[in-house]
């Protein structure tokens, strides 16, 4: 798949994109969520 032989490397390639998408979706959903020695 994608010209890559090893399924483990294909998985890593897609997980990079997937994890970045999670970060983007998280940012969009949580954009305005806020939480005296």
């Amino acid at each position, binding site marked *: 798949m*994608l010209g890559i032989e090893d399924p483990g490397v294909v998985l890593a390639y897609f997980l990079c994109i997937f*994890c970045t998408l*999670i970060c*983007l979706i998280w940012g969009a959903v*949580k954009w305005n969520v806020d939480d005296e020695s």
Partner: protein
Amino acid sequence: MSIWMIIIVVAYLCVIGYLGFRGFKTTKSATDYMLGGRSVHPYVMAMSYGATFISTSAIVGFGGAAGVFGMGLLWLTVMNIFVGIFIAFWVFGGRTRKMGLRLDAHTFPELLGRRFQSRFIQGASAVIIFLFIPLYASAVLTGAAKYISSQFSVDYNVALFVFSVIIALYVVMGGIKGVMYTDALQGTIMLFGMTALLIITYVKMGGVTAAHQSLTDMAALVPEKLQAGGHQGWTSMPKFGAPSWWVLVSTIIMGVGIGVLAQPQLAVRYMTVKSGKELNRAIPIGGVFIMMVTGVAYVVGALSNVHFQQTLGKVSIVAAKGDVEAIIPMYLQSAMPEWFSVLFMLTLISAAMSTLSSQFHVMGTSLGRDLAEESMGRKNKGGGVLATRGAVFVGILISVYLSYIIELKFGKTGTSIVARGTAIFFGLCACAFLPMYVGALWSRGITKAGAIAGMLSGSFFSLFWMVFIQEKASSALLLCNKLFGTRSLAIHMVDGKEVFSSIGPIVWAYVDPLMIGLPLAVGVTVLVSLFTKKTAPDHLNRCMGTK
């Protein structure tokens, strides 16, 4: 060197100077100098975190490693995005920021010290940072000075001196604001440079699938020595349990992937923002940055084999005459258009400056704030910034001296010691700080004695493993060879042949210290905590924000 290159570099330095000056003008207190007044913009925070994390060694060193090991390094990018950004900001960031605010902590050692009510923890953490981060800084500084020296045809020592003075100016004067403003600019340049590198590479090689397929078709060309180590081609993982597999999985993927969580110069970033909202906003920015910078370096590093095979009839490591760190610069020189070399030069200089500035800053706060002021009880109102500025300057002098003397006295041997600096610091921080840090944020049961025992056992054990067992580190550090006449205690001579000690697929000489030291430190922390005096409930309630 063209006139355009000079103009662009001068313009770049002017902008850096302006941002450093802006940091200086808005720094009025110790909180400003160490935490940016706890009100840093999420874009600045995320880019600063990413640019600090990713140094030239991540692009050139690990990109070159991808030229040798192949695209399996993408698992490190997965770890960097998921653990280094998502888990770090969401899970660690929120709690660290809130606890730091409740305890009025300004540094990572101060946070741990106040959480466990121990000046020893604060002081010892600061000592570990101050002793070992110069080695990590020297690794980055030496690489940057060599690159500048070759790019601008100037003497190595001149490059080292000028580069250090420029960084020193904006770190000493501008504090964390100067560091983070310049980091944000440098991170943005890195993002553009690496995106352009990926697009040009894929276009030149006929598209994504065609490029990968060309690399897959080269599996038979793997050098014999690498094949013997378990290498199965540049689009495959190495054979399970083989030396290549252990280096790739235990040192590169796990060592760096997990080690990032306990980096003091990164953990302090969580405390620079105003609220959890900023951390949430930083996650997508950091995720995209890490994917584009590290992911591109590893994909392009692996694909450089296709380029060198087509142009020189050799694979990357052979074309680079065995020098892993020469693969990416050689590829850029021979495969990229001329205009790109200027952009990439700025990318590499930015990567080095952003990492170094944070290393110098954390060195200064460790010495000035955690050791001189707090641990030794010499706290004086208003003197914090001056003491830390002086300490930053001392830290810079030590790093520069180390880079100068290592090159001068030890030549190639020194270079191999410095090259291990990044891995040594990441491994040590994970073993020494991670169990205590996790315990501080989540557990009411981890005691002061447990935290101290875990920190000391993690530090000593990881250092022992680096000096005497892990072959890559122990052969660079030379002490094992001096004392025992072998480069690792896990390697024995039998009938004149080297035999590596192992249990099943575990070959001890290839195992990263983190894989052994971290579980050990966790065990010691928990065990000692079970039998020692508990922390007062009212203090825990204050730390955790519970009633």
